[in-house]
Every structure is written in C-alpha cells, then in structure tokens.
C-alpha cells in the first residue's frame, strides 16, 4: 500500500509538478488536489507548494486561503495530518494561522534565487525526522516576500518550544528575524519554510544536491510506520 501525499494546485501555483516529482522520487504516490476540491482524496499528508497563487495579489496567500480545499486542509491539520508549506505554501500557512507570524518583502527589495545553507534546528517534526538537529543542508531559495516576522513574544515562544525548524546559515538572505527560515506548529505536524526542498532531490538538476529529499523520506517513513 503506497502512501498518498496530496499536492495542492491553486491558480498561479508553480512548483506543483516539481513537488509531485519529489514525492515520487521519495517513494510515495503524489495525489494532485485542485483548489476547488472539497475533500482530500484519501491523502495522508499534504504539501502546499510554491508559486504565486492568485498572482500574490493583495498579499501572498491572502486569497488562496479562502479556497475550498483550504477548509479541508486546515481541519485535517488541526486533527494532526502532516502539512508542509513551501514558500508560497508557508505564506499560506501563516495566512490561515496554522503557523504564527507573517512574511514581508525581502529587506533588499529584490527577488533572490540562490543556493541557500540552512541549519536544521528541529529534527523532531513530521517532515524533518530524517535530518539531525544541527545538520547543515543546502537547498535553493527563491522569493521576493521571504522576510519572516513575528512579535517578540511569539518569537520567544517559538524558540522556547523548539519550534524554529530551520535557520539561515552563513547569510540571512532577506532580513528574517532571528534568521528564521522555517517553523513548526506545537504538535510538529505542520511545517513551513521559504526555501525549496523539492528542487534539491536529484543529482545534476537544480543545484545538483539532494539535501531536500529528507523532507519527503521523513514523512514517508512516519506514515509507513503508523
């Protein structure tokens, strides 16, 4: 029995096919979900991929959060279903309040596309179990609204509860507070990050590394072991 991982496509989503490929390479079965779908088609985990849903008009994720599929995703996430938000998906997770904080325009005001070093701070979430805490990985980063912000109290809480999942290492590419690149919810089933693990799953392609594959093997192992 293969593990079914849902990959949501909104109008303007870009990395949905790439994410489906990463899921396949990890050994799971990608289940395409359309923004108008009201059920999750027996998916056991959900990835919200990157892109510019609704053109990022108004604010990244501000319109797509009202899609029918997001009602189902939010409900399932609250019941413990693993959900990963990458880039636009992370922005969407903050818009739906599954994760705290918000993303602002990069402090240098430019889109930035680069190979980015990250430090895995929490290897205990559903999506990071195949990494070790403190491990440095290198995966592509590409966004213009990637500066993570939250109030001091929230940031302290995230730190205290070990919910900062990833930090930028070497160079903070956008002015994110406390170098935060990704965070988890308290239960550890919902994770969001700005860099793109789905673009680092095959040697030669993209930056040529496979440091991103761990996200997809982590969830696969977790679901197989349930």
């Amino acid at each position, binding site marked *: 029995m293969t593990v079914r991982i849902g990959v949501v496509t909104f109008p303007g989503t870009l990395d949905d096919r790439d994410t489906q490929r990463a899921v396949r390479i990890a050994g799971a079965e990608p289940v395409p979900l359309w923004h108008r779908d009201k059920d999750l088609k027996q998916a056991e985990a959900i990835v919200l991929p990157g892109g*510019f849903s609704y053109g990022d*008009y108004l604010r990244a994720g501000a319109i797509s959060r009202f899609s029918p599929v997001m009602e189902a995703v939010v409900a399932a996430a609250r019941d413990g279903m693993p959900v990963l938000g990458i880039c636009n998906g992370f922005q969407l997770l903050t818009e739906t309040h599954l994760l705290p904080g918000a993303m602002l325009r990069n402090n240098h005001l430019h*889109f930035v596309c680069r190979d980015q070093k990250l430090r895995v701070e929490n290897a205990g979430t559903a999506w990071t179990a195949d990494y070790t805490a403190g491990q440095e990985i290198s995966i592509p980063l590409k966004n213009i609204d990637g500066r993570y912000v939250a109030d001091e109290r929230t940031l302290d809480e995230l730190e205290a509860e070990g919910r900062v999942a990833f930090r930028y290492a070497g160079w903070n590419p956008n002015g994110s507070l406390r170098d935060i690149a990704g965070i988890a919810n308290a239960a550890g089933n919902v994770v969001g990050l700005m860099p793109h693990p789905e*673009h680092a799953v095959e040697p030669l*392609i993209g930056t040529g590394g496979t440091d991103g594959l761990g996200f997809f093997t982590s969830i696969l192992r977790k679901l197989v072991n349930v």
Partner: protein
Amino acid sequence: MTLDTVSHAAGTPETALPWAELGLKEDEYERIREILGRRPTGAELAMYSVMWSEHCSYKSSKVHLKQFGEKAPETDALLVGIGENAGVVDVGQGYAVTFKVESHNHPSYIEPYQGAATGVGGIVRDILAMGARPVAVMDPLRFGAADHPDTKRVLPGVVAGIGGYGNCLGLPNIGGEVVFDPCYQGNPLVNALCVGVMKHEDIHLAKASGAGNKVILYGARTGGDGIGGVSVLASETFDSTKPAKRPAVQVGDPFQEKLLIECTLEIFREDLVAGIQDLGGAGLSCATSELASAGSGGMRVELDTVPLRDSSLSPEEILMSESQERMCAIVEPGKVDRFLEICEKWDVIATVIGEVTEGEQLEIFWHGDKIVDVPPRSVAHEGPTYHRPYARPDWQDALQADDAGALPRPESGEELRKHVLQVVASPNQASKSWITDQYDRFVQGNTVLAQPEDAGMVRIDEESNLGVAVSTDGNGRYTKLDPYTGAQLALAESYRNVAAAGAKPLAVSDCLNFGSPEDPAVMWQFAEATRGLADACLELGTPVTGGNVSLYNQTGETAIHPTPVVAVLGVIDDVHRRTPMGFAEDGQLIYLLGDTRDELGGSAWSQVVHDHLGGLPPRVDLERERLLAEILVAASRDGMIDAAHDLSDGGLAQALTESCLKGGHGARIVVPDSIDPFVLLFSESAGRAIVTVPRSEEVRFNDMCGARGLPVTRIGIVDGDGIDVQGQFVLPLAELREAHEATIPALLA
C-alpha cells in the same frame, strides 16, 4: 460622430483620413485605396497602419531575410520553418522543440518594468501558440554605460520586469547576456527568448480553415494599452472626445498569463483547436488577418462582442490595442462547449467573436454595421516591400585601419596582472549574478545548467534524460568593425557555447537589432550581417527557424552598434553527460583547444584598458568551429573532460577567471614558448575553448584531437587557490573574486 462603415466610406471618397499620423506613407495609403477600390474606413486604416508597420511587415528587411530560406542548409531537423509564430525542431524520441528570440527594445526604454515584462509575455505566447509547453526563458540585454545615471533607471526596471513576470509564470530563466556600451544609452536592447517542448503530433499552426468554425478570443479583456505600439501612438484625430493618448506600452499581468498557459495546454491535450494565434504586436488586427490569410476561406468577426476593460473604446482602438495575455483560437462548432468549459475551469474569459466563412474577405462588424471588408492577405502577408538603398559608410575604412594591435601592451608580469584584474572587473566582464539571481532558474525542476554557464540546459524527458541546450550571443563591437564577420562570430560563439556544454547544435533563431533602415550605412550593415549569418548557417548546417528584426534603434542621427543576437539550440541525449564550466578537481590538466593568433580588434582588453574600438574582428573559420564542436561533444559523451569553457570576449584571462571561481579551484598556467603571454591571455581568436582532462584520459583525449586534426595545447593544471601564470604573476582567487563580483552591485545595488 457617425460610424465610419464600409458603405459610408464608399460614399465619402473625399473624407481625409489621418494616415500620416498613423505612420503610413502617401504611396502606402494610395495602395490601400487601390486594393479596396475605395477609401478605407477608419477601422481598416487602423488595421493596415499597424500591420504594414516595419515591426509587423518587415518591409525594409524582408528582401534580405529571404536569404535565410534560400541558403537554408539541408536538414531533417526542421519541422516548421520561418513564417509561423516560431520554428520547430526535431530533437528525437518523438519530441519537438520550438524556440524564438524577439525584441522589446523601445517599450523597455520608455517604461523599463512593463516593457521588459511584456517582452517575456509576448515571446512565451508565441511558443505556446505552437502547441508547446514553455520550459525556459533567456534574456539578452544591452544597456548604456554602466556608470551612466540613466542606466540605473533602466537596468533595475528591466531586470525587475523580467523577473517579476517570468518568475510568476514558473519559467526558469537559464541564460542570456548583459552588455554595456554607450551606444545603447538612448536605446537599450531588451531581447527575450523562450523555449518550448511538445510531441511531434502536438504542433499547432496559425490558420483559420473550415467554414463554420468558430473564432474564440480568450484571456484578458481588451483595454486601451499599447494602442499603436507597433507603429505610432494613435492620434486623437480618431475622436477627440475619447480619453487622451494612452501609453503605447502594454501593461502585463503574469498571473493571467500563467492561467492562459495552463488553460491552453489543457485545451491542446483534448485536441480542441483547428488553428491558434497569440495576440501580440498589432493585437486583433494581426490575429484575425493572419489566421484568415493563412487559412482557406474568409472570416466574419462581431467586434462588439470583444470583452473590454473600458467600454468607451472605439472599434479602431479595439483593433489596435496590444493588451496582453490574449489568444485567438479556431474551434469546430462541436468542440466549442468543451473549450469554454476548460476556460471556465481556469477562470479565463472566453468569447466566440466570429466564424470562418466560405468567402474570401475578412469582414468585421460593429453592432451589425460592416466596418471592415478587406482581403486578409493584403493586410497580413502582402504589405509593402522596400529595396532600401544601402552603401558602405565612408568611415568604415578608417575604423578598420585603426588597428588595435598598435595599442600599448603591458610590459611586465606586474602590469599584465593589473590588466587581468581590470578586465575581469569591468562591467561587461564582471559577474552578473546580482542580475541573474533575481530570476528563478530552478522552477520546473529540470534545470541542468544555467547562467553563468556557457549555455543553459534543461532536461525534457525524465525517463531518457534527453535535454536541450540554448545559448544567445552577439557582439556589437565586432559587428561594427565588420558586419559580415560580426554576425558570423555571433553564430560561431553561440554554436560553440552549446557544444561546450556537451550538446549538439541544431538550429538558430536570431534577433537583428539595428538602427534606422532609412540610413544607407545602417542598411549596409544590415545587408552585410544577414548575408554573413545566412552564409554561416549554411556552412554549419544550422537553419534559421525564425526570429525578429528590430530597426530604428537609434538616438537622433546616431545608430546603435549593429547587434545581431544569435540563439543556437542544441540537443543532448543524456543530460548526465553535460559539461559544466567550473574546474572541479586539483590535478586535472588544462588544455587550450584551437589556434591563438594576435587578434585584439574589438576585444574586451582594447575597450577596458584603452577605450578603443578599431581594426578588424577575429577571423572566422567555420570548418574549425564545426570540428571543435564535434570534439567537445564527443569528449563529453565519452567522459574525457570534466569541464569546458568557450573563449570569447576577454579571452583566456576571462575564461580562466570564470572557471576557477565557479569551481573554487585555482590554475597553474605555463605559457608555451611559441606565444606571447599577453596574446595568450587577451587575444579573442575564435574557434577556441579550454577543457580540463583527468590524467587517466589524457592519452585518449590527445589521440582523438590528433586524429581529427584539432590543434591542442596543454597550458597548465588545476591547482591551488589562485591563478598562477608562471614567470608572470600570481592572482589569489579571493582577490579575483572580489574584483569580479563587486562591480555590478557597486554600480546598481
């Protein structure tokens, strides 16, 4: 004001029309009257004026462009040639690739962000209209002096526009060029290239056939933007009560374009269209007349059914509007419902605006009144043809006599070192990552190579690992010195770049950027460059599949350097065999392939160190280029080389710098006795590349080159953390990196 219908026009032959304001010449207007047997209506005049513009009709260039067809090499690879939205090339395994490079120069100077953004949008729709999924874009750019204040206005806007639009479409930007020269100060060049992939059976053409088939306009609503963008601004003479002159530059909505792409690909998958055309320059005038002209029969269009952003637009304005993100499809009646359903799924507005008829005329109605009744060929394909006078300019001899070989050269190792640093830090030779890092090069998950590599490369089949590589090149300085040779050098470099990446060059697309065709000197440059390019394409066996001509690139009387930009497409059977440019491993041997002559005319060294342009460009030897390419591809396929980098502007000094910095390894260079160290480092002789060969492959590599007759010289070894030209100087990589990477951010950030 009464509607200017066909019958009204027939009854009022004396009514004066603003043909001159719309950019038409008197004899052109007379010809329109002759074709129609009466005066044109306002709407007809609008259509002819945009379709007979230089941009759409190629009236000054087509007598020269003919050569690309007449001298086309024999090839089985070409599935669709010049004349369609883009050419299509067979790359094997049932796949076809379509690619094209186009200009958006003038709009990008007036409004850098939107001009560049809609340049990307336009070329992407051209590729989409062929039936292909767009898989990559590239942008060859030319700006004025890097330190000129206006460059800081134009360049960041252009780059943000390309990124803002392309990134939002999900198309990896995998290459291109950025060149600075004062000649582009008042006239930057913003060219855009797109590559698309399809199966052979998915090729679609722009023609309207089958009486009763419906004409469907879908995508964005039509607005008042870009009116007369291809000719001149629509003057208020049409109707002075309407909103005043609007920008001739279109405004782009990349989100709408992304929906249009996915929607159109789904429509193709269900085989719902009989013909399709994108709306770009000249908007509906172009789409309706070209579709009808290429098909059989006529076409009837109800113009008042076109969805508008602004209900006050006149029929003339609707016909001329260049609003973006629109497509026009010809659909059999039985398939219309499904077509509209798919558009609804993607929230794309679609409207049946007319149908293909049995007749021969293109007829357009406005609330029931006929306002256009023309033979479509006369609008789309039978525009004026000019045999413009051309003459070799009187300054050409003096320019060529001003030999760069006579410039003072560095006299010591220390001075040589200084010149290397100076050249690799100059704006043209410096790292462009501040620019290219604003483009997404990873999206779609198929990018194998991207800038600053010699060529961009994407995988097109995940099972077989089939891939394509594309490079764009053009050197206005060389072309100014000798247009015939300069155009050939652009092709040679692009061809060499594709081969250096490990791919076999197959086909060409070109964007010919020149000054005013009304200047005989410019026309001579154009004639020479097209002749050179056509001759070289024939000799290299790479046909021109399509492209674009951009004329009138000049400020006052001063034309830009003639700048033919040449894109070469190549195929690689297995992307795992690609060759990157970075030096990967200490101990590997560095070989220089080809002959190095004392050739510095038009070189980066002469520009940077002496601010000089004169003499002759490097010689072209196409037979040698072909041999070099074959060796590069074979060595990559058989695993004999680990890195390759073409030698072009900046010569060996530039190539070593880039390969060392990319790979993070230094190089120890031993200057062969037969050559002067300065010439070795800075000559720009064509037909050369450097490669690194693992020691285990050295004998096999030498044997292959020897057997094929390609001269190779072992010039050093990958080693250490600097470039050490023995007996001359040492340059630590850290110092080199600082020099190479700091320039552009310091000027523009």
